[in-house]
């Protein structure tokens, strides 16, 4: 079945991954800017990374018939130095105008510190002042519940926020309703051990319904699976879900969410 992975870090994946993703039906991907596994030494490193996401990765994916889009931002793990973050944020506007950039992401919290919040407020303000869509990274493990609620508190305080244009990502059993009840899109990440898995995502679909859910692999430089979305398709089939629900989850939903950006063109 054709699918879109709305959150995957192609820069960390091999060409073999792209080949097998294409064979499994992947037609488009969206890649949020994130932490590459080590702290960058300066603003130029971010500049080059943003160029990679907007110039090189789209070409690499195009070789396999996969459309590549990206989100620009500074991740929470490198947001602790607010002065440095300001310099990176100053780089963002010129990249946001590039033709395959969908908005600002992934931004959010990691350890939920004051400095992370200060940087996040700058990023949210940039997004809202430009009318950009946003993707939020919610923290890992024990910090997720608290951090998700803090992010929702920050957004609730700003009248410019349109929840339909925001994805709260990496939701799990204890946070998904928080995002959906306030009108946001909820991303569910299929990532071994530390996040959800295909079986639990299908449970969530059965409990809260498929509307405004986005299934993603977040496959990156760690142990992760670029075929996690097709794995969900197989899990849903095994459990007797109709084609229409499966197609909504892995195609219609990402097209509806990402398609709110004028830069996104649904694959035909």
């Amino acid at each position, binding site marked *: 079945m054709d699918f879109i992975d709305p959150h995957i870090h192609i820069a960390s994946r091999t060409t073999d991954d792209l080949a097998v993703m294409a064979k499994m039906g992947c037609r488009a991907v969206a890649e949020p800017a994130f932490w590459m596994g080590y702290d960058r030494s300066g603003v130029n490193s971010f500049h080059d990374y943003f160029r990679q996401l907007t110039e090189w990765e789209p070409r690499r994916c195009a070789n396999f018939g996969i459309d590549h889009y990206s989100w620009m931002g500074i991740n929470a793990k490198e947001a602790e130095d607010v002065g440095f973050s300001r310099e990176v944020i100053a780089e963002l506007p010129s990249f946001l105008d590039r033709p395959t950039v969908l908005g600002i992401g992934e931004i959010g919290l990691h350890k939920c510190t004051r400095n992370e919040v200060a940087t996040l407020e700058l990023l949210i303000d940039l997004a809202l002042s430009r009318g950009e869509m946003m993707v939020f990274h919610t923290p890992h493990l024990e910090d997720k519940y608290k951090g998700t609620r*803090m992010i929702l508190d920050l957004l609730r305080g700003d009248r410019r926020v349109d929840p339909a244009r925001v994805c709260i990502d990496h939701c799990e059993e204890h946070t998904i309703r928080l995002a959906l009840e306030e009108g946001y899109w909820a991303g569910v990440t299929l990532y071994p051990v530390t996040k959800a898995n295909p079986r639990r995502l299908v449970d969530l679909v059965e409990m809260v319904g498929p509307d405004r859910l986005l299934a993603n692999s977040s496959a990156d430089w760690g142990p992760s699976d670029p075929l996690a979305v097709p794995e969900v398709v197989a899990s849903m089939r095994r459990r*007797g879900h109709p084609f229409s629900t499966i197609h909504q989850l892995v195609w219609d939903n990402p097209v509806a969410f990402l398609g709110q950006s004028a830069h996104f063109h649904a694959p035909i």
Partner: protein
Amino acid sequence: MSMPSNAVETLNRDWLPLRAALIDLAATLDRIDRAEGSVDEDARWAQIQQSLAVLSAPEANRAEQIQLIFSLPYEPNWRP
């Protein structure tokens, strides 16, 4: 929305993986017990004991309850 799934069919499908998960869980706890020293004072051990209690409770939101056991508390007045 919910799939009209039948409990017996669901148990049939999940029986062997569930059985395997329980045995793996038991073996992991045994491994910790067999090892030298004690984890009685370790906060994570208390979280595991609380989670085991949730498993045998009748509610249908066990996964969410266990997620919350492993979560830091949220302070509504977190802003300075």
